[in-house]
């Protein structure tokens, strides 16, 4: 006999704007604006968490770029955004944000070979050996989501700047706000900022809010001590963890190192470990800017990504271990060896910032057979603006290598050709070319 009892299905409320439920931890998360960074974090940044970004290179400003992505994502998703710091600097940060690509709602699935690095003749059908025809193309990063009907993650382009009308309307509607210390006291404004954040939480407890704190411990914060900064982060975490506020903290380069440089005194090593334990997530973006050797070893990248800690809100194991494709911790492994974590690098192309798995080239420096000269590395003075443009053949690697006797003196070069030389086929091994060991 059929029962008249009907089970009432629990009403599933849609997640708040710009958020989604993590499949591993069942915690709401939001996007950082960079799909590959979302993947590294295990899907996104959990609500009620603190993510700390460290960029130790003094000659670049990757932390500002990531802050801008994070803020732009919040504005585009319709979430509340609050920027903490000196008001004019905060306004300048927001005004410099990137914005949506014109073709956002089109097919944004490009794959690993981006539009900047399309090989010549790529449109022609490539002949592949039959045994490899069924294999997927080698992927070094994650694809952007094809669907744009949800508001979780948008495709931003670095060539697009946020329209001034968008920031003005966001300010007027209260979606965007700036938070700064009101008093002109000489002491660092940590306590005042914390009390303002506490008031903001009490006023907008149920709202999804992004709290951006750029350059924590920098000039705006005055004469800071390591204890004061750590105490600030500790108290802030206690405030936001039960709320829907998410915080992105970045530090100035001199405080983004394991032995930070404080004016007051020297500090022991372990600074990054302390920040990692006090934050829910902590990542370093170590640029190659001041290391020509690394730049020549990895010409396609701008730096390393180190994951010191991945968020693990309401779970014992960070979802990143299970879900991150880039980190590769969940990849199948042999029965004796564990799956090691992939090396990660980042690069900034003309249109986007992306994190990829880092691989060494084939010994000899050439990764594949080419009929054109390879794209060579250039040591840039200002790494921030170093965008790898489409292969310009005029650019060439200029790495100063001091040798006892110059191997090749252009002034006495007997090569003064009158007729154009045919471009040499470049393969992995060159028998006639100059080798590293030629003296």
């Amino acid at each position, binding site marked *: 006999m059929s029962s008249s009892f009907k089970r009432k299905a629990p009403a599933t409320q849609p997640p708040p704007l710009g958020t989604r439920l993590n499949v*591993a931890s069942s915690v709401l998360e939001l996007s950082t604006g960079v799909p590959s960074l979302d993947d590294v974090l295990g899907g996104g940044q959990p609500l009620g968490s603190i993510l700390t970004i460290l960029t130790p290179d003094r000659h670049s400003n990757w932390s500002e770029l990531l802050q801008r992505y994070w803020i732009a994502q919040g504005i585009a998703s319709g979430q509340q955004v609050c920027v903490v710091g000196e008001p004019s600097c905060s306004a300048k940060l927001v005004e410099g944000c990137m914005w949506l690509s014109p073709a956002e709602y089109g097919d944004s699935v490009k794959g690993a070979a981006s539009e900047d690095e399309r090989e010549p003749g790529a449109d022609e059908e490539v002949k592949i050996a039959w045994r490899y025809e069924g294999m997927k193309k080698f992927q070094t990063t994650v694809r952007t989501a094809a669907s744009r009907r949800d508001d979780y993650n948008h495709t931003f382009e670095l060539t697009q700047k946020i329209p001034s009308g968008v920031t003005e309307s966001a300010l007027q509607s209260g979606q965007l706000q700036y938070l700064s210390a009101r008093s002109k006291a000489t002491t660092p404004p940590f*306590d005042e900022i914390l009390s303002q954040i506490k008031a903001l939480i009490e006023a907008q407890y149920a709202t999804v809010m992004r709290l951006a704190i750029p350059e924590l411990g920098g000039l705006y914060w005055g004469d800071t*001590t*390591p*204890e*004061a900064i*750590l*105490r600030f982060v*500790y*108290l802030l*975490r*206690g405030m936001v*963890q*039960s709320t829907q506020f998410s915080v992105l903290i970045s530090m100035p380069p001199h405080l983004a190192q*394991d032995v930070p440089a404080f004016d007051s005194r020297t500090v*022991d*090593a*372990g600074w990054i*470990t*302390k920040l*990692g*334990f*006090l934050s829910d997530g902590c990542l370093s973006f170590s640029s190659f800017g001041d290391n020509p050797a690394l730049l020549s070893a990895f010409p396609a990248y701008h730096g390393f990504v180190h994951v*010191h*800690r991945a968020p*693990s*809100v*309401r*779970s*014992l*194991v960070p979802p990143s*271990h*299970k879900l991150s494709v880039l980190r*590769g*911790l*969940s*990849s199948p*492994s042999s*029965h*004796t*060896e*564990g*799956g*090691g*974590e992939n090396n990660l690098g980042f690069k900034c192309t003309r249109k986007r910032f992306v994190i990829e798995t880092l691989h060494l080239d084939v010994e000899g420096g050439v990764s594949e057979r080419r009929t054109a000269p390879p794209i060579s590395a250039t040591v840039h003075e200002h790494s921030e603006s170093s965008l790898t443009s489409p292969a310009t053949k005029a650019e060439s690697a200029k790495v100063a290598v001091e040798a006892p006797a110059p191997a090749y003196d252009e002034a006495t070069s007997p090569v003064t050709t009158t007729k154009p030389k045919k471009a040499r086929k470049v393969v992995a091994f060159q028998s006639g070319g100059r080798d590293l060991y030629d003296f």
Partner: protein
Amino acid sequence: MSTTLVPSLTFPSQSGGTSNSSRSALPTGGQLLLITDDLVSPSDFLLHGAVNMFFKEHKTGRVVVVSSLDEAHWKAVSQKLGLSLAPHSASGAFELLDPSRFLGSSPDTQGTLRRLYDEIHQRIPPTADASRSSTPQLLVIDDISVLEWISTEPTTVIRFIRAIRHITTSSGTGVVIRYHSTSSTKPPPALQHLMETCHYHVSVKSLTSGRSGAVSGEASAHSLKASINAGPVLEDKGFVSRPTAEALHYRVDASGFKFFDRGTAGGVI
């Protein structure tokens, strides 16, 4: 879930006796267990394991946890490990103290630690006969290293540890203290004092080969000076130490953790 936090790691029971059956899986009677870890291999699983194990072992008991992580986190993780903390929290058997609530505007943490000590003392009152305490009690202190990092005066944390040792000894409460190791060349004063004060030490370290998806880290167990110097009558002869050279590997996943010998999958991987 296993019957001990770390395989073969047992503690003298409050009732005394030297046989293995009279040993306890958790510290009791004023014994202090120090757990050190690092950022790559945090020991959250041991803290949650200790709380879960306590409630499974003792139908009536009390656990006080000093941690800045909120109750929702503790409940969610315990649930995944097979224990619901909600009824224990509702009855007052599980209580969470957040040190950040006691932090005042002054950067000096002395006042903070005094208030925190008072709160703990209120919940773990001394008993007439600590060795025969009727209600088993466990104190878990998670944020001791953070309190040292934010403190301008390292002696305040040392005094706090000393005071905690006194009240837990007089109340017969077992203590689990977690300390986060940093890459600092010399051990901080609080860690040095903990190594002198605590009876047992479990060291959780990351693998030298870096992060792995199959092995989360390695753990070793040691007896400390407080236990060794307790004298021939009180010295714990039943403790099975596991030196660093014989450290066990462990793997943590969402539903629990498992230990296995080095170089063996042990049915885990």
